[in-house]
Structure formats: structure tokens, C-alpha cells
């Protein structure tokens, strides 16, 4: 009897353990609601950034912002029977998190800034067939250059294809503080300044401010993380370019070209008119405060500029000029976030419907007005909410004229090699020519191993 009891209790423990394991490992339910055109269809959408589940207070503006349930409600209303669920994640470590999610078939739609790295893995659905058969999707609705910027090579492609469509916009521009310009009696930057103009004005505004008597710096640029892109834009402004090709087998770098050398010399010169800590992303702490001491900020993005400017009441003080462009009007880093469909998605048609919905005015307005992110469609230029923020107009212009397609090495080893060499030059470890030659040599050797 005792043995029977022991046997039962042992079996119970085993059953419980197995149930716990099976519960943990079970796949999620892919079926949605029972009625409607999309009955039983369900998708999971991964989103990165400041999205919130429910209505919450924005820590920058202090205003209540609506949660992403607004999008869920509207999408499910427009698609009867469908269910959409979200997986929200912060920008921190999004690449490795996305890699883990895509490997374990966790979502149907991904917000994917690293499209160029994921498409060659063969894990994404090409979107051109969906665009071709869907009359509701008009690519002209996107701001110029945005679709081209996200074209990448898939696993078996020999020419650039669409694997993602723009969802969040982004851009790089030069921002400046009009008050410091006024204090020093210097004309504001022109809308499309040259390297010479920026350098001259930065030099004029370095020293003790004639009005306040406080130390001012003419210019600041990030000398570490994004310095490679700042340098490439300087080369583009002289009609140079980073190199050519997109697939690794075709890529040829041009990191030690005369334009790059002149660009790095320019940065070395500008360093003399900048705060001490630019190589460690320091010295610009007062930017976008009333005590700001830097006149010109290079390579800025809208996420860190637009919302904080208006939240601080500095809209009359901040100006935006375009980055350096080549003779075709192109230049600067292409950035943002596209939406892509996972090849493993079981509901690709509904996933496509989500992409259409997320790139239409309702969702794009939500993105701008509630989340404070930048919309990617032309219609945004005429919204009341964007017109109330005049700083958005030069942002839209910057979004329409970056270098496209996105630099294929933008998140690979050559980017870190070039960045480290720019830092080496800025800290006096190597001359500009030595640094660029080393970056060229190491990047070429690296890409040779990838072929």
C-alpha cells in the first residue's frame, strides 16, 4: 500500500514537472477572433522605442500620451476578426533582441533598423510582390528617398530589393543656437552651409561671450560613436563618397580618399573650437538648455532635438541647417526604422495589412503626436501638428536628401574601424592620413574575408 502511495506521489510530481515544462515551451496561440473577414487571424508586432502599452505621462513634456492600444483598437476595427498583439522593446540592445526573436519565430512584423543585416539571413519576406498586387499601397506616399534608403539585398538577390517600408523617419542635420549667434553678432547659418561657412562661424563664436562673459564654443560633434558618419558626410559635401557596392563581394572602400583626408583635417581643426570631451561624448551637456554654451551642433537627429526643444520652450532659439550635400543634393546618414515581415509568419497577409495601416495617416499621426517620433510620409508635412512646429520642415527636407541606399557597413566592422581611427586622429595618436590609411587597410582586409 505504501509503495502504491509513493508511486502515486512520484507520478504526480513528474506530471506536474512535465506540465510546467510543456506550459513554458508551448507555442503561442495563432488564432484570433471567430467572426469577420479576418476571423481567426492573429499577428504579433514587435516595436522599438518609446511606445507605451497604455496611456502614460511623457517624462520630457509632462503631457499624457496615449498608449499603443489606440493602434490596436483602430486596426482591429478596420480588420474585423483580426487580433494584433505587441511586443514592445527599448532601443537598448535592440539588434541582439531582434536576432533572438527572429531566430525563435517570435513575431510576424518587425520594426527593423538593421534590415541590411537581417535580409541576407533569408528570414524576411520580400515586399515587392505585395506592393505589386495591392492597389492601396502607393510608394509615392513616403517622403522622397525613404523607400530607396531601405532597399537591401536578400539571401539570393543580385540587386537591391524592398524588404521593409519606412515606419519611423529619421535624419541628420546641423542644429544651432540663434541666441549665441546674436550675442556674437554672427549671421545665422544658411540653409545649406558649406564646410567653410561652418568653420568660419564656429571660429568667430569661440571664447568669452561678449554679452554674458561666459566661455562659449563654436562647434561640437560627437567624436566617438557617430564620428565615422560625420566624416563620411564631410566627404560627400566635397562630392566624395565612402566607396561603392552593397553586397560584401562588391564592396570597395574609399576611406583614404583626398575628400576623406580633407574632411578629417577639418574635424581636427574644428576640435580646437569645441569643448574638451567630444571624444567621450562630453562637453555638450548644456545644449538645449537656456545656459547653452555651444553654437553649432553637427550631425544631430530629430529625436534628440525637436521634442526637447519645444518641451524646453527653446523653439525661437534653435535653428536647423542641412548637412553637407554633394552636387546632386545628396549627403548624410540615412536612418530610421522600417517595418518588415518575417518569413516564418503564418499570417503574412494580415502582417502586410499591418504595414499598410502603420504607414497610413492614422498610425503615422499617432507616432508623431503621441510618441514624439518622426513620421515617414509626405502627408505629415501638411498636418496641423507639424505646422505648429516649424522646426519639422527642415527635418522633412533632411529626410528627403540623405545618402541612399543606407551604408551597407553602417553596423559592421568597417564602421567601428573607421570610428576608432577618427578617434585616434582626434586624440593625436595618429595623423589624419595614417588613421585613414589604417581604416582603409583593415576594412578592405575585413571585407575580403567576408567574400
Amino acid at each position, binding site marked *: 500500500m505504501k509503495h502504491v502511495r*509513493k508511486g502515486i*506521489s*512520484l507520478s504526480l*510530481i*513528474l506530471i506536474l*514537472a512535465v506540465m*510546467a*515544462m510543456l506550459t513554458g515551451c508551448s507555442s503561442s496561440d495563432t488564432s484570433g477572433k471567430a467572426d469577420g473577414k479576418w476571423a481567426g487571424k492573429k499577428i504579433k508586432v514587435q516595436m522599438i522605442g518609446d511606445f507605451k502599452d497604455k496611456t502614460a505621462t511623457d517624462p520630457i513634456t509632462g503631457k499624457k500620451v496615449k498608449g499603443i492600444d489606440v493602434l490596436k483598437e483602430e486596426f482591429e476595427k478596420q480588420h474585423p476578426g483580426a487580433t494584433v498583439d505587441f511586443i514592445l522593446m527599448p532601443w537598448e*540592445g535592440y*539588434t*541582439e533582441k531582434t*536576432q533572438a526573436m*527572429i*531566430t525563435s519565430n517570435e513575431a510576424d512584423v518587425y520594426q527593423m533598423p538593421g534590415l541590411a*543585416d537581417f535580409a*541576407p*539571413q*533569408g*528570414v524576411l519576406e520580400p515586399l515587392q510582390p505585395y506592393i505589386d498586387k495591392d492597389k492601396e499601397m502607393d510608394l509615392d506616399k513616403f517622403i522622397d528617398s525613404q523607400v530607396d534608403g531601405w532597399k537591401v539585398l536578400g*539571401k539570393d538577390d543580385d540587386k537591391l530589393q524592398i524588404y521593409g517600408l519606412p515606419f519611423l523617419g529619421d535624419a541628420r542635420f546641423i542644429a544651432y543656437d540663434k541666441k549665441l549667434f546674436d550675442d556674437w553678432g554672427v549671421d545665422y547659418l544658411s540653409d545649406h552651409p558649406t564646410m567653410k561657412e561652418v568653420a568660419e562661424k564656429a571660429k568667430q563664436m569661440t571664447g568669452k561671450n561678449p554679452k554674458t562673459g561666459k566661455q562659449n564654443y563654436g562647434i561640437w560633434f560627437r*567624436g*566617438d*560613436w557617430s564620428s565615422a558618419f560625420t566624416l563620411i558626410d564631410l566627404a560627400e559635401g566635397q562630392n566624395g563618397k565612402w566607396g561603392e557596392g552593397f553586397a560584401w563581394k562588391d564592396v570597395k572602400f574609399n576611406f583614404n580618399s583626398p575628400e576623406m583626408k580633407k574632411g578629417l583635417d577639418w574635424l581636427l581643426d574644428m576640435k580646437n573650437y569645441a*569643448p*574638451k*570631451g*567630444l*571624444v*567621450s561624448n*562630453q*562637453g555638450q*551637456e548644456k545644449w538645449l538648455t537656456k545656459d547653452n554654451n555651444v553654437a553649432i551642433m553637427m550631425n544631430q537627429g530629430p529625436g534628440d532635438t525637436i521634442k526637447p526643444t519645444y518641451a524646453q520652450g527653446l523653439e525661437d532659439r534653435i535653428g536647423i541647417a542641412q548637412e553637407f550635400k554633394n552636387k546632386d543634393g545628396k549627403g548624410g546618414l540615412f536612418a530610421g526604422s522600417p517595418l518588415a515581415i518575417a518569413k516564418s509568419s503564418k499570417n503574412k497577409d494580415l502582417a502586410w495589412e499591418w504595414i499598410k495601416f502603420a504607414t497610413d495617416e492614422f498610425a503615422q499621426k499617432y507616432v508623431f503626436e503621441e510618441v514624439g517620433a518622426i513620421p515617414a510620409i509626405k502627408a505629415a508635412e501638411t498636418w496641423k501638428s507639424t505646422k505648429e512646429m516649424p522646426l519639422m520642415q527642415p527635418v522633412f527636407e533632411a529626410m528627403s536628401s540623405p545618402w541612399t541606399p543606407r551604408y551597407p557597413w553602417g*553596423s*559592421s*566592422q568597417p564602421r*567601428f574601424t573607421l*570610428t*576608432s*581611427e577618427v*578617434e*585616434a586622429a*582626434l*586624440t593625436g*595618436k595618429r595623423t589624419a592620413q595614417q588613421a585613414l590609411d589604417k581604416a582603409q587597410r*583593415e576594412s578592405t582586409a575585413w571585407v575580403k*574575408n*567576408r567574400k
Partner: protein
Amino acid sequence: MANNSIELNVRMEVEKVRSKRKDWGLKWYVFLIPSFLGILLFMVYPIFESLRLSFYQSNGTVEHYIGLANFKSVLTSNSFWNAVWNTFFIGIFQIIITIPLGFIFASIINSTKRGQNFFKVLYFLPNVTSIVAAAMIFAFVLHPEMGIVNYVLHAIGLPTPGWLSDPSTSKWAVIILAVWHWVGFVIIICLANLQAIPSEMYEAAKIDGASGLQQWFFITIPNMAGTFAFLLITGWIGALQRFNEVYVLGGPNGSPARSIQTMGAFIYERGFTGFEFGIASAATYIMFILILVFTFINLKVSKMKI
């Protein structure tokens, strides 16, 4: 006859207890299954998967076998050896500064009559602080223009270094942070040992006329050997795995100019920002071998028994 019956009864009782123990013994293994599965899935499997990956060129999903090419690539890479140098430089100075400093502080705290617990808590606080948060604060503390360290240096007429914006001082910035963060742990471990040294030894030494300093040199320090060995080994392993603080202070490529990129950061840079999982795995195994070799050397040097 009676004896035989008693013997039989005893034998039966013994058998009963044995079989009971056997049954209960088996049952406890069931409770170990969840943690065993966890170890199997999250430790054993990644270790072998990483070894396999180190022989492949892999971007996460597409991969092909390339033999030892990843190891060759890592071992001939200047960036990797620079990362090894940085790791060792920061590690060595962290250890040779923190262990003596922590021991001295522990000895002083141990000899105070009042407020021992207060000082223990005070010095241990940095160790319970998140190193990520501490690194962010240190970036401000060591700010070249607005930082408190340079403010003090300037006030007493000393030169003000660029700290994290200068490759020649950035490693020292990390060392200062590492010492500050680890010293509390060293103090607590040393204090535990100090309090375990029998007071009779000191009393005997006093009777023999030994001074306080002589007692410290000839009684305290020799009795601390095991603790020093423990701190040396755990400190080394931690130093060779350093990642969090250098990632916060210098990003994955250890800015400025790779001056604070450690082996851990090198692996992260190649694996998670460059999608070169094969290279990252090969570097991980090389790092593992380095840690193994140096732990072995440390064990020999410190004569610690494991």
C-alpha cells in the same frame, strides 16, 4: 534460537530503512530536474553551441564551415591583442591597488573600537551599487571640464587630464571606478578573516614585546594568505571578464581609439553589432583559455588548495 530471531529482526529493520532511504533518495532527484534543465539549456548547450560556431562563418542563421579560420583571424587581429592588453592592464592595476588598500582599510576598521558596522556599511555600499549606474556617474565625476575630480585637481594647482576623452588616461578612469567598486568587497572579506585570527596569538606577541606593526607583519599578514589568494583568483577572473563598465564608458569599441576595449567588449562588438558570431565565439574560447591559464598560474603562485 532467540538470538537468531533478534538478528533476523534487526536485519529486516535495516533492510526496511535502506529501501526507504533509496526511495526517498530517488524522489529528491525529481526536484533537481528544473535547475538541472536550466543549467543544461542555458549553460551547457551555449558552451557547446559556441564551440561549434567558432568553426563557422555565421551571421546568426546563414553559416558555412571554415575550420580554424576564425581562430586565425582573432589571433592575428591587432584589435584583439589590444583588447587583451587593455583587459590585463586594467585588471592588474585594479588588483594590485585594491587588495592592499582594502586590507589596510579592513585592518584600520578592525582596530577601531566604535562604529565598525558603520564603516563596514559605508565601504561596502559601492559594491552593492549597479556597476552600470556607477559608470554613468563616474563619467560625470571624471568630466574633463565639469567633473569634480578635475575641479579639485585644478584647485590644488595640478594638471587636469582629459580622463575618458584621452586614450592615455582613459584606462586609469576605468581603474579608479573598478577600485572604488571592488574595495568594499575586499574590506568585508579581509575583515572576516581578521576577526577569525585567534586573539591569543596577539596576546602572546605582546608578552614577547612585539610592537603593533610587528604584530601586523608577522601575525596578521601570514594569517591572511588564504584570503589574499581567494581575492587574487576571484579578482582575476572578474577582471578578465570585464565588460559592463567599459561598455557604458566607451561603447562596444572601447572609445577613445579602442583604449578601454576589453576582451568582453571585443566579443560583443563582433558578435552583436557586427553579426560575426563565428569570430565572437572563437574569441570567447580564446578568452576562456586565457582565464584558465592565468587562474592556474594564480593557484600555483598563491599556493591555494582547491
